[in-house]
């Protein structure tokens, strides 16, 4: 890591890390009577630790100019490992909170073990920790290959990757201490939000600077999706987190918005986090790794462009479907509903495009679990976007909203689409990224595939059942017009499904652990002997029979 940096970059790194340490110190002093102080110490430790590490490597030999003949993949390698570590943390906590819903006594009266504090660790852990690291790692990989240009420098990719993980750690540790601004998927407080903006601007700048140096005239469609992800997430994040802290020494802040404006801003953010974090970015992944693994160009490149503009236009307006039957003006609800339904067109164009690309390569899907992960992701993408459009219709929403159906829908997307495309892409690049001939165990990939699929199916079916039963119980009236079932009646009816859900989640978690083990063992395999020699010299063509 430090050996890759030029001397000037090492000095820059020390400057940045030193400044970070000082900011941490200021937070620790200013927030000494507040939970902010604890985060100050974490930031100080990160800055100081990094500073010392770079200082120790300051006089190491500079990287040779030869490096410019290679893509810069070290951040991708670290990003892939961080992806799997966060997968285990995020899914592990997810399993735990699922168990808490079935057996609520397991909080043991410890505040930080309560559901309200652990749940955001699960959601942020899987969305930002697992998903975000996967997006950063693969975007650097795809960007370089599709532009045939090396990343612009050696320091900014590390700043983005490590700075982003610092944000994730601040977020997760804050939730455990009870720090939250109570906005779903935007829980971290103001100082963490400001830090993420800095990281994100550098991330977008890397993209722009690499594209400016590209050797391919056309910008491959995967990059458009990745750029939409980076740009729109920045806009969403900044607007939804506009807030005023009660003082610079306090973690607590108040949002700029209140009442229904706050709700609308939050769900404009929340739904577009699904759209641009969990969809656009992962579609970028799909549009590169799926054709590559299948060995076939994307079925219709034009369709991928139309889907791109369709998805980016329409998702922006769909957020208000989260606020059906609320104080939000009726026409805004209808607008959100209409756009959600129309969104099915570009969504299915993408899912169809992926599946049609596989047409003619189904034998590969059958034999290769890695490609099967991606094919299944496309199928789940199709299922989930259909379900989402359907649930956004006001009448359907009156049954589904506030029930477990929503949780089932989210997990069909998160497990079936996001995680499957991530694992498929990850397995497809791990051997080449770590210069190994193959993955350690193809059999374990197969095991992971079936764990992931069965876990997802069990989870989603449990929540579909439970959600519909819940919705129906809440709207069943007696002859005199009272509610037939109390809330606790519906809760008792949910119990078996909650156990099934926790079991499905456990299977999925075991799959992620299998992946981590498989990747670690791949890295530990001996490198192919002729690796270094083969790198620089083109291989001699083998003699053909009869030559």
């Amino acid at each position, binding site marked *: 890591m430090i050996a890759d940096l030029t001397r000037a970059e090492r000095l820059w790194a020390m400057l940045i890390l030193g400044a970070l340490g000082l900011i941490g110190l200021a937070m620790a002093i200013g927030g000494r009577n507040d939970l902010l102080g604890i985060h100050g110490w974490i930031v100080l430790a990160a800055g100081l630790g990094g500073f010392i590490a770079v200082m120790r490597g300051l006089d190491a030999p500079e990287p040779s100019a030869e490096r410019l003949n290679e893509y810069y993949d070290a951040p991708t390698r670290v990003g892939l490992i961080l992806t799997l570590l966060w997968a285990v943390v995020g899914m592990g906590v997810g399993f735990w909170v699922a168990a808490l819903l079935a057996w609520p006594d397991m909080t043991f009266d410890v505040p930080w073990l309560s559901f309200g504090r652990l749940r955001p660790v699960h959601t942020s852990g899987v969305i930002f920790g697992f998903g975000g690291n996967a997006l950063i790692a693969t975007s650097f990989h795809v960007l370089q290959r599709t532009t045939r240009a090396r990343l612009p420098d050696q320091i900014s990719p590390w700043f983005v990757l490590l700075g982003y993980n610092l944000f994730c750690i601040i977020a997760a540790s804050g939730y455990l201490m009870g720090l939250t601004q109570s906005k779903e998927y935007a829980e971290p407080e103001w100082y963490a939000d400001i830090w993420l903006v800095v990281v994100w601007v550098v991330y977008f700048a890397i993209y722009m600077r690499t594209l400016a140096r590209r050797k391919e005239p056309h910008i*491959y469609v995967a990059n458009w999706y990745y750029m939409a992800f980076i740009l729109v997430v920045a806009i969403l994040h900044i607007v939804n987190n506009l807030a005023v802290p009660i003082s610079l020494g306090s973690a607590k802040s108040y949002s700029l918005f209140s009442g229904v404006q706050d709700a609308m801003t939050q769900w404009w953010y929340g739904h577009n986090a699904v759209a641009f974090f969990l969809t656009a970015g992962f579609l970028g992944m799909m549009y590169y790794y799926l054709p*590559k693994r299948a060995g076939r160009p994307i079925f219709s490149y034009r369709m991928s462009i139309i889907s791109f503009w369709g998805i980016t236009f329409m998702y922006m307006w769909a957020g208000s479907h989260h606020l059906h039957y609320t104080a939000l003006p009726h026409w805004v609800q209808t607008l959100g509903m209409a756009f959600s339904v129309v969104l099915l067109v570009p969504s299915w164009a993408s899912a169809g495009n992926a599946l049609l690309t596989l047409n003619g390569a189904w034998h590969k899907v059958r034999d290769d679990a890695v490609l099967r992960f991606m094919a299944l992701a496309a199928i789940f993408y199709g299922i989930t976007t259909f379900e989402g459009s359907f649930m956004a219709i006001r009448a359907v929403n009156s049954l589904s909203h506030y029930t477990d159906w929503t949780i089932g829908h989210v997990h069909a997307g998160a497990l079936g689409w996001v995680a499957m495309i991530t694992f498929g892409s990850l397995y497809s690049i791990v051997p080449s990224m770590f210069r190994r001939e193959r993955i350690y165990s193809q059999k374990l990939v197969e095991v992971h595939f079936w764990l992931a699929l069965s876990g997802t199916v069990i989870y989603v079916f449990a929540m579909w059942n439970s959600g519909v039963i819940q919705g129906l119980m809440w709207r069943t009236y007696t002859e005199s017009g009272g509610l037939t079932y109390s809330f606790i009646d519906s809760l008792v009816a949910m119990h078996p499904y909650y156990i099934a859900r926790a079991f499905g989640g456990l299977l999925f978690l075991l799959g992620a652990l299998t992946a981590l083990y498989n990747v670690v063992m791949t890295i530990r395999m001996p490198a192919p002997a002729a690796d270094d020699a083969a790198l620089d010299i083109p291989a001699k063509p083998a003699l053909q029979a009869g030559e």
Partner: protein
Amino acid sequence: MPFDHDTVVGFSKSFGLFYLVALSVIALVWTYWPSNKKGFDEAAKRPVLEEEDRPWRG
């Protein structure tokens, strides 16, 4: 023009429609513009090309 609720709603309901239609037309025309086809076809092959895995230097 006053910046009140009705004005903002009126603007959203009128301009919003034209903006969406205009952007859709631009995206579709650009995608199906005949001379763009060659570039798209080449771009589509990008991930599947078997070439050395290193930046282009020249």
